[in-house]
């Protein structure tokens, strides 16, 4: 099942964008943490987790993201999440993740918000 997730990172308009395509579950833990740590080592300040509309995320995946929120707070980084389906936007709100990582429907809106506050 390791093939079920693809994690890639790129830098654009002042933000590190981590693209997630597939199932965000325990199997994704290593790849996501790796991408986050690489970004941090590079001194990233704004980090966007860019999901795909048809990604699936379970509670183990949410736990991975909570772990990253915890570290991002220590490093004073700004976390953003984009591209989530309505269902997972709702779950992120229910769980309270949105308090620590701003949700934007699209990547474009997230990038615009970063440019505004720059």
């Amino acid at each position: 099942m390791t093939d079920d997730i693809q994690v890639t990172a790129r830098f654009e308009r002042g933000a590190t964008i981590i693209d997630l395509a597939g199932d965000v579950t325990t199997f994704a833990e290593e790849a996501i943490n790796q991408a986050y740590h690489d970004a941090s080592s590079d001194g990233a300040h704004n980090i966007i987790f860019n999901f795909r509309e048809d990604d699936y995320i379970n509670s183990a995946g949410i736990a991975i993201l909570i772990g990253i929120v915890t570290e991002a707070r220590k490093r004073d980084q700004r976390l953003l999440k984009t591209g989530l389906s309505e269902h997972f936007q709702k779950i992120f709100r229910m769980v309270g993740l949105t308090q620590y990582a701003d949700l934007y429907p699209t990547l474009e809106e997230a990038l615009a918000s970063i440019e505004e506050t720059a």
Partner: protein
Amino acid sequence: MIPPNTTRVVELKIPSELGYERVAREAAATVARRLGFTPERIDELQTAVDEACTNAIRHGSKSDARMKVVVLLSADEKKLDILVKDPGAGDLPPTEVVAPDIQAQVEGRSPTGGLGLWLIRQMVDEAYFMEDDESGGNQFRMIIYRTTDESRSAFDNESPSTDDEGGSE
């Protein structure tokens, strides 16, 4: 021919190995779609079934792929009733479900995780471990009721005529 309101049951047995919960989640979605549930409720159902099976694999079978998790999806005109059975190889499941304290997790005051059962509760109409299973395993039950809107289709005898004589299909 077939008595009206016959319950339709789909039974699924998966190895107790993470990854196979996906088969259960998709089977549940297909059955729910067939019953006319809305896309939103199908998403919720998928999350509930996925979490329940993940627990049955991780906690109820200690991720031993030689064990099995059984999922029963029973549909009638009123509801979709889902039973997730595991061999009960782990500790007893909890009797209470507490809302996760995300703030405490983020501030490092409590370990991350513990979201599954709470999340399931938010997704379906009923969710609970059944007591007194003779088999010694755990049985976790989830129900979603059909709204009046969803209660058409699938039970209204609208299947196409199908004979076994071949010819024009």
